[in-house]
Structure formats: C-alpha cells, structure tokens
C-alpha cells in the first residue's frame, strides 16, 4: 500500500486516500464476485454428486468454465420491462438487493490486519446493511406491475423481516459475550483454541443465527420466494436476462456473507482451532506452522464449510410450508433467543463466564 501511495505522490493527499480505498474495495470485491460465480458451479456439482449425477461437465475442463458461459448467456439476453411497470424502480431493484450484500464486506476482518474499515460499531453496521436487502425484494415486486410478483414480494419480505428479529437477538448474545461491537474484538475475545469459540457456550444462538441466515437469504428449505410448486417464481417473476442474474448474484453474495459472519461471530474468524493448544515449537515449523497457525486460510476454510451446509440443506430438506416458516420464526426461534439471552445475562451478572 505504501508503494502505491508513493507512486501517487503527485496527487493531493485526499485524492490519494480515495484512490487507495478504491483499490482496497476492488481487492475485496473481485474475490467475492469470483467466489459467487464459482459457488453456483459448486452448488450444481455438489447437489449433482449428492443425487448421484455428474453435474455440469461440458464447458471447459471438468465444467470449470460453466459460470462464465452462464454469465455470457445471461448478458446477451433481452431485458423485458413489463408494460406500465415503474421503469426506474424496476431497474433499480436488482441493484438495491446486491449493493448491501457487497457493502457489508467493508467491515469484515479477513485476518488480524486485513480489514478495510475497522469501525467501532461493526456489528451494528452489518445488521443495518443486511436489513436493507429487503427493499430490493419489495421494490422489485411492486415495480413489476404484476400481481404474482407483488404477492411473491410480500411473502418473502414478511419472511425476511420475521427472521431478522431472531438474527438480531442472536447477535445481542454475541456482543454480550464479547463485550464489543467491533468485529475484530469479537474475534479476539474468542482467542485461545477451539474451546474458547462462542459456538460452545452460545450453541442455541449459533443454531438460531444460522437457521435465520438460511431463511434470510431465501434458500432451501425456506425458499418459498421461488416455490415452483405453489407460485410462479415470486418477486422476480417479471425479470429476465442480466437483471434476473443480479438477483441471483445477490442471493449467493448474501450466502457467502452469512457464512463469513457465522464464522466471525461463533467460530473465531481467522483464529486457528489449535491456537493455544499446540506448543510454540510446532507453530514455528516453516510451512506446517503457518498452516496450523491463525490466518486468512482458516477464515476461508470455515466460511466454505458453512457454504457447503447451505448446499447440503438444499439437497436434503423438503421445502417448509409457509405457515410453518412463520411459526418457526416467531414462536420457536425468537423465544429460544430471549431465554438464552436472559440466561447469559444471569451468567454474566454472577461472574460466571464459560467462554473465557
């Protein structure tokens, strides 16, 4: 970064800062978007193998160029704007659903030093931004001027709003345990080996958070937004071509974000599970030591595990009925979080902190 700053020395200081931030944003978003593209391939391959099929294997070696072929195909398709649709909002909606999913990466710590913006209220920022994603759904449904799209938007928006509450309460438990809203400090609070990670003392909140995350992203088994057997697609029924693909990208970007956040909040982010367990002599072995020690590779590994869970759920579970989704959100997950937070508060008041 210093070398780039030195190269840009002839520019005014403020412009240099802006350029540096832009470079960092690109450095984060390019891998994220690449991961989104290859997550679609991974999904088809993983579900294929689970169902004893091959999955896509025609484009490129082992089907590795399939996402690129898909992107090219979608880009050259015509975007049809329905008659009497609110044109500006119709085009804006996909962008609104994708933007928060990408903007949230600004505060995600990839390793001890690798974070774009290490702000105090990082957790609140994430919560605020993920709550904005629902606007993409609502605006898309309304702007399409279609009854199917409107009804689909209403049901998936109601689902997202309902599960957001359970998600927020799960985060409250995490910040009580960590004593901070800063994501880096939340990870630091889990330092000292796998038994210090929050998923053990907060197992209930961990499960609630991940289940709500699956429901928030409208993924199977909560994917009533596109329930083929009941309604025609849902809020994005009138979209075609790249506009539809952007909704798709937003869904996958949100999946990766939920995986990364679950990792940070409950599984110690970039911390190694052997941290504090293995002696220092093992960690100083050249290659093996850096592999077993903390670092960005653990973050990627844990996030990938949660992404696999997303795919696994889709291949395994049948879709929930809509009233059961609402019941699970309001009558099961929210009471669980309330009781858990109360118990955690008692534990803190009594000075009994199992996570330390």
């Amino acid at each position: 970064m210093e070398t780039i700053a030195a190269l840009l020395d002839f520019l005014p200081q403020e412009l240099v800062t802006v350029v540096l931030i832009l470079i960092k944003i690109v450095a984060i978003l390019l891998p994220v978007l690449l991961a989104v593209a290859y997550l679609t391939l991974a999904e088809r391959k993983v579900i294929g193998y689970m169902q004893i099929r091959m999955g896509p294997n025609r484009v490129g070696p082992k089907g590795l160029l399939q996402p690129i072929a898909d992107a090219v195909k979608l880009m050259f398709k015509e975007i049809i704007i329905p008659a009497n649709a609110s044109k500006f909002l119709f085009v804006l909606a996909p962008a609104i659903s994708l933007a928060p999913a990408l903007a949230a990466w600004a505060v995600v710590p990839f390793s001890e030093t690798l974070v774009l913006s290490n702000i105090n209220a990082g957790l609140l920022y994430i919560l605020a931004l993920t709550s904005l994603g629902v606007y993409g759904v609502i605006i898309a449904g309304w702007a399409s001027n279609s009854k199917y799209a409107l009804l689909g938007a209403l049901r998936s928006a109601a689902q997202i709003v309902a599960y957001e509450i359970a998600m927020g309460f799960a985060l409250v438990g995490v910040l009580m345990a960590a004593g901070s809203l800063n994501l880096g400090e939340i990870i630091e609070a889990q330092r000292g080996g796998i038994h210090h990670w929050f998923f053990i003392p907060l197992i209930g909140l961990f499960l609630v958070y991940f289940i709500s995350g699956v429901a928030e992203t409208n993924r199977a088994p909560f994917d009533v937004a596109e329930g083929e057997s009941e309604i025609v697609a849902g809020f994005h029924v009138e979209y075609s071509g790249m506009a539809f693909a952007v909704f798709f990208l937003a869904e996958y970007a949100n999946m990766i974000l939920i995986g990364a956040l679950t990792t940070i909040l409950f599984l110690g982010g970039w911390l190694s599970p052997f941290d504090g367990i293995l002696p220092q002599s093992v960690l100083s072995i050249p290659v093996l030591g850096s592999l077993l020690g903390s670092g960005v590779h653990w973050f990627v590994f844990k996030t990938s595990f949660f992404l696999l869970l997303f795919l696994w759920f889709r291949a395994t579970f049948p879709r929930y009925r809509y009233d059961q989704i609402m019941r699970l959100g309001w009558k099961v997950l929210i009471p669980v979080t309330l009781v858990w937070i109360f118990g955690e508060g008692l534990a803190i008041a009594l000075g009994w902190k199992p996570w330390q």
Partner: protein
Amino acid sequence: MTFVQFLFYFFAAIQILAALRVITVRNPVHAALFLVLTFVSAACLWILMEAEFLGLLLVLVYVGAVMVLFLFVVMMLDVNIAEIREGFASYAPAALVVAVIMVIEMGMVLTHRIFNVRPPLEKASDVSNTEAIGRVMYTDYVYPFEIAAVVLLVAIIAAIALTLRRRPETKYQTPIEQIRVRRNDRVRLVKMKAEKKESGS
C-alpha cells in the same frame, strides 16, 4: 472546502431534495421510498458527526423495519390519488400554521440558552459513543429509559389487542397437533373375514 464538508453538503442536499419529493410526488409508494432516502441521508449526516451509533440505529430501525411495514401498507392500499389531492387548498392554511410553529420551535431549540445546545464535543475520551450512550442510559437515565420501555410494551399489547379478532368459523392448521399425530389416530386396521364370492356374478 475539505472533503468532509463536501460530503456534508452532498448528503444534506440529497436529504432536502428527497424530503421535498416526499410531499410533492404523486404516487404514495414513491413518496414512501423518498422518505427512506431522507432517512438514509440523515443517517449519513449523523455518521459524519461521529454519532455512528445513532446513525446506524436510524437505518436499522426506521429504514430496515418501520418503513418496510409502511411500504407494505401503502402498497396494499388502493389509493385514489385524485381524491387525496382534492382538499389541498382547504388544508393549506392549517398546514402552513403547523409548519410555522415547527420552524419557530426548532429556532428556539437551536438558539435559546435554556435548551443549552452545544456543538458536539471533540473526542471526549477513548470510549466509543456506543459505550458512552450505554453508560448514560443505564445509569443516569435508567428510570426514564425503563418507563419508555414499559410504554412501548403497553403500546404493543394494545395494538395486538385492538386488531385481534377471534373468528371461530375459520379453519386453520396447528402445526403442533399435526406433528403429534400418530398413525393410530388416523388409521384403524379392521380385521374381517374374507367374504365368499357370490356365485353366478
């Protein structure tokens, strides 16, 4: 003009324009969306003033929750725009009076020494403002805070009680009962002797 000042004027301009559009735009859904834009730019201004906790809370509560429900209602209503605009001239004087009173009140708050408004302090301590607000809220202002919480709770219960309508004639499913059902509740295995085939049929 520093970069921060530029950002301030940028967000302030968006906020004022969006607030104007809220009351001038014809379509109620568009008006609600402009209100969302107003809230977001207000949040940006607060964050610019280093009140990041309040700014993010504004986005979380008003934009993420309140306005979503607001949009739900506005989208589902069959609003006749021409009918609403009919009485504009007759409402205008009353609206003007309210607006003038609000301007005077805000002027009093901003200028009068009784209200004692000071410019934001320069970084009072190394405590983040989330922590600072939390400390004040749970120590000095703990009773007002709890009274506000109780009032909100009463409001929630009242809203539910007012809208709750028991309709015994509607049929609905109870998932708990559905899950509890065992085979024996629904199917009865009847043993019967094999009947003789009638001859000649």
